[in-house]
């Protein structure tokens, strides 16, 4: 017995010793950490001096001054982003700016990876994430990222030449600081000037659509009858599996775009009803919208939307697109270019074509969204960046015509030629991109596939993407609408409004599949009412009011009514 007691005592002592040594170790590491930061600020100070001495020669782009080789770690918050090293675009960046980019891409849940990096202060030099991500407000502070305006003033005034003033105004915070610059930022004028079109599409399989007599699918009855006819005529697809008459995109924990903003835009329902803003998810109250949701419910009841539609993720859906397993598909075609292109190459007669989809009872043409002022994803320079001067110069490069050309067109003679003073991408490159994306990415990866600096300017050089995509673009022409002022209305996650909105959205994510899978319209109505009650119980109006105030502020920023 005594032996045991001693053993226990020993364990205790050991644990204590360990704790003490560990604390000692922590204490030891602290000074090293701080010396690191002081070193970083030293180098910053040195380069500041350098910048000041050269302020006179302003007009010269900053990136041309210093092209010494350097590596830059860049986190891109999208699991699907992929840039095989050594391709042309990557090499051109190295050539023109001296920067060798090391892209870091999340595996699994992107938001979680980003949260972990924020929490552990291990953000790399640069970060790119959607402006709509909940981490944006947090990252847009001096604690995490450099204000781009300060960096630009200090190291690279050329930045102001390449940044669009409208978009800078849009993203400036109260103190006039700009923490990130978006790709694909787009003003209403750009829509017409560059002929910007929407990616939205309602796709149907061409052979089936023609076999059932090209029905009008704009009305609920037309839609349901077409699905029924398709299923009756083509119960199975080529590989022997059953045809899925209709599917939207994949469901997430907060809903499904196909039955939210995409549907609203097809129905030409504006974001404001009677002058009041409503969220695109969380149950838009417009009667036409609700009646179309009921139409989809009916489609599910009729067996036109099997369970796959509710459980498949993006990979599964793309696999099925490539097999031509869907008849009708409410999906953004740009999100599925690889499978759509492959299906076209393998079986051109089974290709998907874009046709008129769900419409409102007046059969108004759709009002499809293009990107707004907010653009798509923000690129930020983090406080962990050792050479913010090089990073801002690199950003200026990417946004400049030089950078745009390198990232979109590639190298003259290799990927594009000048015809009548206009750059034209070689047809074989275009063909490779449409039919063999993998090789294209490995060899070139131009075309703005490294998209963090993409802008409307690239539209000028855009070749016809080839079939089947030409047809999608053709269909979408003239149907663009600018919803820019409704972006950026999200409360921060740790405010009352933010918590309420998150709750309402999560509940919407739970309820949306149930609404669509409801056995009857009565059940649908009951679920809808339950959701309305839930929103009241969490005081949703408070979050909505916040969003409405934000929308009003946004309008003031760009002078819209």
């Amino acid at each position, binding site marked *: 017995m005594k032996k045991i007691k*001693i053993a226990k005592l*020993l364990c205790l002592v050991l644990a204590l010793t360990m704790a003490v040594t560990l604390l000692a170790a922590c204490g030891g590491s602290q000074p090293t950490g701080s010396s690191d930061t002081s070193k970083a600020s030293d180098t910053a100070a040195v380069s500041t001096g350098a910048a000041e001495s050269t302020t006179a020669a302003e007009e010269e782009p900053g990136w041309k001054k210093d092209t010494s080789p350097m590596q830059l770690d860049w986190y891109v918050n999208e699991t699907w982003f992929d840039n095989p090293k050594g391709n042309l675009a990557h090499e051109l960046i190295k050539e023109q700016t001296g920067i060798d980019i090391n892209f870091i891409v999340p595996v699994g849940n992107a938001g979680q990876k980003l949260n972990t990096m924020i929490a552990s202060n291990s953000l790399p030099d640069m970060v790119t994430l959607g402006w709509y991500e909940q981490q944006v407000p*947090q990252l847009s502070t001096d604690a995490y990222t450099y204000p781009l305006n300060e960096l630009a003033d200090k190291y690279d005034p050329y930045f102001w030449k390449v940044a669009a003033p409208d978009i800078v105004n849009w993203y400036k915070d109260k103190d006039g600081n700009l923490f990130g610059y978006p790709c694909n930022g787009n003003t209403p004028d750009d829509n017409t000037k560059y002929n910007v079109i929407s990616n939205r599409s309602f796709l149907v399989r061409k052979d089936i659509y023609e076999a059932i007599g090209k029905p009008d699918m704009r009305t609920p009855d037309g839609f349901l009858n077409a699905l029924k006819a398709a299923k009756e005529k083509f119960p199975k697809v080529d590989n022997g599996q*059953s045809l899925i008459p209709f599917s939207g995109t994949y469901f997430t924990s907060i809903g499904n775009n196909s039955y939210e903003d995409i549907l609203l835009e097809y129905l030409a329902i504006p974001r404001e009803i009677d002058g009041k803003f409503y969220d695109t998810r969380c149950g838009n109250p417009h009667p036409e919208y609700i009646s179309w949701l009921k139409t989809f419910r009916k489609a599910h009841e009729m067996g036109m939307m099997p*369970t796959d539609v509710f459980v498949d993720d993006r990979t599964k859906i793309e696999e099925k697109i490539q097999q031509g397993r869907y008849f009708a598909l409410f999906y953004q075609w740009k999100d599925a270019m690889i499978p759509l292109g492959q299906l076209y190459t393998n079986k051109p007669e089974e290709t998907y074509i874009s046709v008129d989809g769900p419409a409102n009872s007046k059969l108004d043409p759709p009002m499809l969204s293009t990107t707004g002022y907010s653009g798509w994803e923000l690129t930020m320079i983090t406080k962990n960046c050792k050479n913010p001067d090089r990073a801002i110069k690199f950003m200026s490069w990417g946004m400049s015509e030089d950078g745009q050309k390198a990232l979109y067109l590639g190298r003259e003679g290799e990927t594009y030629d000048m015809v009548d003073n206009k750059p034209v991408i070689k047809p074989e490159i275009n063909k490779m991109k449409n039919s063999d994306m993998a090789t294209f990415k490995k060899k070139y990866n131009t075309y703005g596939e490294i998209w963090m600096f993409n802008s409307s300017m690239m539209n000028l050089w855009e070749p016809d993407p080839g079939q089947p995509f030409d047809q999608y673009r053709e269909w979408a022409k003239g149907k663009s609408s600018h919803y820019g002022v409704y972006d950026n209305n999200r409360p921060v996650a740790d405010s009352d409004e933010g918590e309420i909105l*998150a709750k309402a959205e999560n509940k919407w994510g739970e309820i949306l599949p149930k609404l669509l899978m409801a056995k009857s319209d009565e059940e649908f109505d009951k679920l809808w009412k339950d959701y309305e009650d839930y929103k009241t*119980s969490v005081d949703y109006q408070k979050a909505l009011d916040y969003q409405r105030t934000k929308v009003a502020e946004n309008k003031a920023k760009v002078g819209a009514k």
Partner: protein
Amino acid sequence: MFILSNMPVAQKRNLGTKRSGVLGLISRIWAQRDLQAMAIPGVIWMIIFNFIPMYFIIIAFMRYNVAKGVLGSKWVGFKNFTEFFADDRFWLVMKDTFGLNLLRLIIGFPIPILFAILLNELLSTRFKRFVQTVSYLPHFLSWIIVGGIMYNWLSDSGLITTLLVHVGLLKEPIHLIGTPQYFWGILITSETWKEIGWNAIIYIAAISGIDPSLFEAAVIDGAGRLRRVWNVILPSIKGTIAVLLVLNIGNLLGSNFEQLFVFYKPVLYDVIDVIDIYAYRLGIENGRLSYATAVGLFRSIFAFILLYTANKASKKLTDTSLV
């Protein structure tokens, strides 16, 4: 105790110093330094992953903001807890957690014991080894892989679905895994299949530790196979079973997060929302770390109470307990 009794190296170095007090302790530690060194990584691991995070439990009572840190975040008291208890999904979460885990306990716990006993009855050692190895191989597959396989097998055109249709158990092919009412069954079957061999190992070890003379005596007394199982094997491994049962009960509120996460789809939320998944979805996914921590803390406290009670009960009933 373990360290002292089983270590010949230490014995060689004259452990027998009878000195007492601090000096004696130090000299003892010094005498066992090689062995004590081996424990250090484990202790460090415990401190880093189990003790330091304890400090952050405090964020359960805050509206924690990563940027502001623990010291800068706003204190909200029990708000996160009351919010969880008042949430309209609270009872559903409880039902899912307890229901799933109770079924797991009722089905998943005895089967490995049965399997170990059956395996023990095999006469051919070679065959026994083979079966045992094959049975625990699935344990080494990650749930991501098993989930992927099941996803394909149980979809509307999958292997198992097609088989069930041919046999006549299903009228028409349906997406089994996307159908909420089948989900628990699929979950428990797959987990039992995956872990049966692995969980049986400890019982096989316990059975092989039974004194052979007991069996011989039983045979001489004319006991058949079932008798031997009932009167020799089961009483001999009673302690092992009790300890493992207590541990399992402590885990009643836990979950196999990985496994559930593979099948995590909005259609299945109502049958899949166990505490951990719920905390992940409404807490972590929305950046509400405090809420997730509060829900997690509630779970831990509840689990501790369960474990403690089960342990007490076990001590009373079988005289076996964890501490």
